[in-house]
C-alpha cells in the first residue's frame, strides 16, 4: 500500500516535474543554519560555509539524489528516449510514413484474420470448465461410408441411455438433438432453432438459469409429458421484450402449448458455434410433438444415430483413459445387440473442438491456421523491409551514435533508444492496423451470407482482438528493431574512420545480413503467393463445378408439416395441392417437392444390395436419401441416363421403386445395368426396384466427389419436412410472393423458411472459399509489393554505398554494361536463392494444406511456375532501377565525392 502510494507520487513527480526550487530553498536554509552554528563554534565565515557544504556532500549531488527519489528514473530515461525517438521519426517523415503504412497493412491483415478465428475457433463456449467436457460419437468400422468427413456419426438414443446409466467415466452424460419448431400460428408463424435435450443437459454443462429453473432429473422420462421449455436469453430479450413475468407463461410451439420454466444466461446458445442465439430447449420426452418423419419413427431404434451426446469427465480422468473404458462398454453393447451395434464403437473429442462440427474441426482449424500463417508471412516481410530500412538508417546515423557512445552512453542505452524508436513505429502501425482491420471487418461483414445473420457469429473487435493486436505490434517492433539496434550500437570505429563515414565497399560478402534479408524476403513472398495461387486455382475449379442441375431461375422454400400435426394422408394431399397451386401461378414453369434442399445434404440410410444382408459380414453402405414428387428431375433439369422417372402411378399399393444416381450405380453395379436391380434398407426387408438412373448432382458441398443418392417417391416414403423447388420462367425473386401465398392458401398456419434463389444458395456455399480466395489474393499482392520494395531498397542502398567502387571500376576501364551486369547479377543471385528456398518450404507446407484444396495438387506445377516467373520479373525490375543508376555513375564525380 505504502509503496504504491509512493509510486504514484513519484509517477506524478515524473510527469509534472516537481519544482526543484522548493528543495533548493530547503537546502539553502540547511546550509545557512549549519554555517551559523559553525561560526558560533569559532570558524571563519568562509570556512564555516565550506565545512557545511562538505558535510552535506555537495549541493548538486544532494539535489540529484533528491530528484531521483522524487521521480522514477527508469521512466524518466524512457521519456527521454521517447521524446528523442519522436524527434527522429519527425525528422524522417518519408521513412516514418512508409514504415507505419507497411506495418499497418501487415498488422491490419493479422487483426482482420484473427477477428474471424477468434469468433469461430476461440470463442469458448460459456460453460463451466470446458476442457473437461467431451463429445461422444459412434464410429462404425463395418458400414461403408461414402461421404467425406463422416467418420464420427453421433449416437443412438437407446445406446445413449445405456452409456448414461452404466459408464464409469462421466459425472454426467447428456444428449441433444437439433430441431426446428414453429412458434405461434395464424398470421405470422415462424420457425425457431431448438434442441430436444436430456434433462441433465444444463447440469452437465454447468450452466445456471438467469431466470426460473432448468429441467428436473425426471422431466425427460415419461413420453409426452412435461411440456416445458427453456428459452435462450437472446430469444427472451429480442422477441419477448425481456418480459419479467415470462416464467410460468405458456408459449405455442408446433401448435402445442409449453410452459416457460427458465431463461439461459446471455450469450449461451448451446454447444454448437454456428447456432442461433435465439433458441429453445425442450425435454426429449416431448419428441413425438416436436419431431416428424423418420427422426420420429426411428428415434428409439438402437441402430438410428439420432442424437449428439456429450459428458463431463470425472475429475482427474484423462480423455484417452475414458475412451478406453467406453470402448470396452461398446464391445459389450455390440455382443448384446449385434444386429444394431455390429462394428460400432465410440470415440471422444473435446467439446470445444466439436462445437464447429466434430468432423469439420480439423479442416476449419487448418484453414484458420493457414490464413493466420499467410498474414503472419506478410507481416514478416514487412518486418524484414523495416529491419533493412533501419539498418540503412543505422549506417547513416553511425556518426550520431558514435558521438553518443563517446559522450558515455552505454550499449544497452543505445540499444534501448533504438528499440524505443522501433516500438514507436510498431505501436503506431498497430493503431493504424486496427483501423484497417475495422474497415476490413466491415467489408467482410457486408459480404456475409444470410446464414451468418442467423448464427449470430460475433465479428467484433473485442478485448481478445485488442490484446492480440497489441502483442503483435510489440513483437513486430522487436523483430524488426532488435537486429539493427544491436548492430548499430556496435559501430566499427576503424571502418567508419577509414571510409570517412560513408562506407566504401559494401559487397555482399561484407554484408551478409542484408543479403539474407533479400533471400528471406523472396522466400516468404514465394510461399505466400504459392498459397494464394493454389487457393485461387482451387476456387476457380470449385466455381466451374458442374452442379448436375440447372442453376438458373430456381426458387426454393422449406416448411415442416409435422408442426401442423398432419398425418401421412393429409400431408400427401397437401403436397399435391401445393404443387398444383404453384404450378398454375404466373411465372412458374414447374414445381416439385423434395425432402432435401439444394446443396444441403440430407438423411443417410444404410443400403444393402439384393443378396446381401447383415449376416453376410457386410454392414451395408450409408447412402443419402431424397424423397421426391414425380416431376422433380424435370424441375431441377437433372438428366435421366437410364430407365424412367417416378409417375403418379407409383403409389403406396404398387411395387416399391427407387431411382439412383450414377455414382451409386457405379458403387454397387460397376459394370452392369443398375436398372432392374434391387436393394433394401437396414431394418426394412422390402426390396426396392431400381427403375431409373439419373446424372450425379451436388448435394453436400461444391467440389465434392459425386455422391451415391437414392431417390424415393414421396408417395411410398412420406416425409413431412420438405422443400418446395420452383422452376421459374423469369427472375425467381418475382414469384416469391405468389408462391408463398399459394402455399399458405393451402394452410394458413404453415411457417415458411429458408426462402432462397439458387443464386443465393450458391453464393452462400461459395462464400467461405471466395472470401478466402479474395483475402489470399489481397495478401499475396501485398507480399509482392512489400518484397519488391524491399529488394529495391537493399539494392539501391548498396549501389549508393558502392558509388566509389563503381566509379573506380569504370575509371579502370569497366564498361557500363559490365556494371549493369554486376548489379543485376548480384540481385538475381539472391532472388534465385530465395526463390529456391521458398519452393522447398512451400512444397512441405502445401502438403499439409492439400486437404483444403479442391482438385488442385499441392505441387501444381503451373502455380509454382507462374509465381516463380512473376517474382523473378518483379525482382528484375526492382534490381534494374538501381542498376541503371549504377550504370550512370560518373567516375570523376564518384571518386571526387568525398
Amino acid at each position, binding site marked *: 500500500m*505504502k509503496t504504491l502510494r509512493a509510486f504514484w507520487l513519484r509517477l506524478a513527480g515524473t510527469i509534472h516535474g516537481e519544482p526543484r526550487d522548493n528543495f533548493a530553498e530547503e537546502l539553502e*536554509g540547511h546550509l545557512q*543554519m549549519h554555517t*551559523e552554528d559553525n561560526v558560533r563554534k569559532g570558524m571563519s565565515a568562509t570556512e564555516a560555509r565550506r565545512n557545511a557544504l562538505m558535510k552535506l556532500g555537495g549541493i548538486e549531488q544532494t539535489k540529484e539524489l533528491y530528484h531521483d527519489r522524487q521521480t522514477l528514473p527508469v521512466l524518466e530515461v524512457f521519456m527521454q528516449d521517447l521524446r528523442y525517438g519522436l524527434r527522429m521519426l519527425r525528422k524522417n517523415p518519408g521513412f516514418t510514413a512508409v514504415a507505419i503504412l507497411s506495418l499497418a497493412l501487415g498488422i491490419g491483415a493479422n487483426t482482420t484474420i484473427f477477428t474471424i478465428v477468434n469468433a469461430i475457433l476461440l470463442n469458448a463456449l460459456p460453460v463451466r470448465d470446458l476442457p473437461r467436457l467431451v463429445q461422444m460419437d459412434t464410429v462404425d468400422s463395418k458400414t461403408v461410408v461414402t461421404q467425406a468427413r463422416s467418420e464420427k456419426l453421433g449416437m443412438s438414443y437407446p445406446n445413449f441411455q445405456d452409456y448414461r446409466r452404466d459408464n464409469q467415466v462421466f459425472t454426467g452424460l447428456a444428449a441433444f438433438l437439433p430441431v426446428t419448431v414453429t412458434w405461434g400460428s395464424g398470421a405470422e408463424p415462424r420457425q425457431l432453432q431448438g434442441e430436444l435435450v436430456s434433462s441433465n443437459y444444463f447440469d452437465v454443462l454447468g450452466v445456471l438459469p438467469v431466470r426460473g429453473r432448468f429441467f428436473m432429473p425426471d422431466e425427460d422420462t415419461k413420453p409426452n409429458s412435461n411440456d416445458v421449455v427453456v428459452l435462450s436469453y437472446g430469444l427472451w430479450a429480442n422477441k419477448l421484450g425481456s418480459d419479467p413475468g415470462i416464467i410460468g407463461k405458456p408459449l405455442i410451439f408446433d401448435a402445442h402449448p409449453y410452459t416457460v420454466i427458465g431463461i439461459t444466461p446471455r450469450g449461451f446458445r448451446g454447444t454448437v458455434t454456428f447456432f442461433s442465439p435465439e433458441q429453445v430447449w425442450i425435454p426429449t420426452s416431448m419428441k413425438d410433438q416436436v419431431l416428424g418423419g423418420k427422426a420420429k419413427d426411428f428415434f428409439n431404434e438402437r441402430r438410428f444415430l439420432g442424437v449428439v451426446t456429450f459428458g463431463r469427465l470425472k475429475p482427474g480422468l484423462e480423455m484417452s483413459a475414458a475412451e478406453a473404458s467406453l470402448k470396452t462398454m461398446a464391445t459389450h453393447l455390440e455382443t448384446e445387440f449385434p444386429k444394431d451395434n455390429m462394428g460400432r464403437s465410440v470415440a471422444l473429442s473435446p467439446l470445444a473442438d466439436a462445437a464447429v462440427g466434430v468432423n469439420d474441426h480439423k479442416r476449419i482449424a487448418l484453414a484458420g491456421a493457414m490464413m493466420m500463417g499467410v498474414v503472419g508471412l506478410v507481416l514478416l516481410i514487412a518486418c524484414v523491409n523495416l529491419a533493412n530500412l533501419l539498418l540503412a538508417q543505422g549506417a547513416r546515423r553511425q556518426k550520431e551514435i558514435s558521438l553518443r557512445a563517446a559522450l558515455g552512453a552505454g550499449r544497452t542505452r543505445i540499444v534501448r533508444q533504438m528499440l524505443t524508436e522501433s516500438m514507436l513505429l510498431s505501436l503506431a502501425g498497430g493503431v493504424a492496423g486496427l483501423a484497417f482491420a475495422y474497415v476490413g471487418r466491415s467489408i467482410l461483414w457486408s459480404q456475409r451470407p444470410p446464414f451468418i445473420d442467423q448464427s449470430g457469429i460475433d465479428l467484433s473487435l473485442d478485448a481478445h482482438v485488442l490484446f492480440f493486436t497489441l502483442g503483435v505490434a510489440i513483437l513486430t517492433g522487436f523483430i524488426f528493431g532488435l537486429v539493427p539496434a544491436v548492430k548499430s550500437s556496435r559501430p566499427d570505429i576503424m571502418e567508419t574512420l577509414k571510409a570517412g563515414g560513408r562506407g566504401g565497399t559494401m559487397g555482399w560478402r561484407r554484408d551478409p545480413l542484408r543479403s539474407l534479408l533479400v533471400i528471406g524476403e523472396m522466400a516468404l513472398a514465394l510461399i505466400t503467393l504459392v498459397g494464394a495461387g493454389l487457393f485461387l486455382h482451387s476456387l476457380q475449379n470449385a466455381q466451374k463445378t458442374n452442379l448436375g442441375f440447372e442453376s438458373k431461375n430456381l426458387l426454393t422454400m422449406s416448411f415442416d408439416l409435422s408442426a401442423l400435426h398432419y398425418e401421412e394422408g393429409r400431408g400427401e394431399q397437401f403436397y399435391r395441392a401445393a404443387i398444383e397451386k404453384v404450378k398454375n401461378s404466373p411465372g412458374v414453369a414447374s414445381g416439385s417437392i423434395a425432402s432435401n434442399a439444394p446443396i444441403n445434404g440430407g438423411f443417410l440410410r444404410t443400403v444393402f444390395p439384393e443378396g446381401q444382408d447383415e449376416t453376410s459380414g457386410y454392414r451395408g453402405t450409408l447412402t443419402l436419401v431424397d424423397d421426391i414428387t414425380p416431376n422433380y428431375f424435370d424441375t431441377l433439369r437433372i438428366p435421366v441416363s437410364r430407365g424412367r422417372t417416378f409417375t403418379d402411378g407409383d403409389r403406396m399399393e404398387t411395387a416399391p421403386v427407387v431411382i439412383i444416381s450414377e455414382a451409386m450405380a457405379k458403387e454397387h453395379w460397376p459394370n452392369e445395368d443398375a436398372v432392374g436391380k434391387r436393394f433394401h434398407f437396414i431394418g426394412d426387408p422390402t426390396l426396392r426396384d431400381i427403375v431409373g438412373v439419373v446424372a450425379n448432382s451436388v448435394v453436400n458441398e461444391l467440389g465434392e466427389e459425386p455422391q451415391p443418392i437414392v431417390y424415393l417417391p414421396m408417395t411410398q416414403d412420406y416425409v413431412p419436412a420438405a422443400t418446395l423447388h420452383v422452376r421459374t420462367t423469369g427472375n425467381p425473386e418475382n414469384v416469391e410472393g405468389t408462391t408463398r401465398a399459394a402455399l399458405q392458401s393451402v394452410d394458413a398456419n404453415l411457417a415458411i423458411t429458408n426462402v432462397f434463389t439458387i443464386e443465393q444458395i450458391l453464393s452462400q456455399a461459395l462464400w467461405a472459399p471466395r472470401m478466402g480466395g479474395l483475402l489470399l489474393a489481397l495478401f499475396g499482392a501485398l507480399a509482392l509489393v512489400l518484397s519488391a520494395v524491399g529488394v529495391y531498397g537493399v539494392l539501391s542502398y548498396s549501389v549508393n554505398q558502392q558509388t566509389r567502387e563503381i566509379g573506380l571500376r569504370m575509371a579502370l576501364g569497366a564498361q557500363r554494361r559490365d556494371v549493369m551486369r554486376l548489379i543485376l547479377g548480384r540481385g538475381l543471385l539472391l532472388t534465385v536463392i530465395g526463390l529456391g528456398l521458398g519452393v522447398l518450404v512451400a512444397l512441405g507446407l502445401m502438403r499439409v494444406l492439400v486437404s483444403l484444396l479442391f482438385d488442385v495438387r499441392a505441387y501444381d506445377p503451373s502455380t509454382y511456375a507462374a509465381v516463380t516467373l512473376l517474382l523473378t520479373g518483379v525482382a528484375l525490375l526492382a534490381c534494374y532501377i538501381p542498376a541503371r543508376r549504377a550504370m550512370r555513375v560518373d567516375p570523376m564525380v564518384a571518386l571526387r565525392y568525398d
Partner: protein
Amino acid sequence: MAEKVDVWQGTLALMILKTLETLGPLHGYGIARRIEQTSGDLLAVNYGTLYPALLKLEQEGYVASEWGQSDNNRKAKYYKLTRAGRKFLGREERDWEQTTAILARFLAPGKEPA
C-alpha cells in the same frame, strides 16, 4: 554494497522517525544534528542522504512537512510524525529489538545453551 545501503537506509529511516518522536516537529538540519549527536560520526560523512530519506518517508505517508520559522527566524521546512508514522515506528522498534536480541545471542556463543 547495495545491501549495506539498504540496511543503512532502513536504519536511517528508523533514526529519523525516532528523532521526530522524541523531539517533535523539526527541520532537516536539526534532525541531522540530533542523529549525529546520538550516533557518533555515523552520519558525519553526508548530511545530504537525509533528504531523499525524508522524501521517501513523506511519500510513504509516515511524515508530513510544512514550512515554518526556525529559532533564529529563518524559513525552514519542518517535518513531523504522522499517525501512520507513529504506528510504523512502534512496529519497527519491536522488530529491531527482536533482531538485535537474536544477533546478540548469536554473537555471544558462550552463553548459548549447549
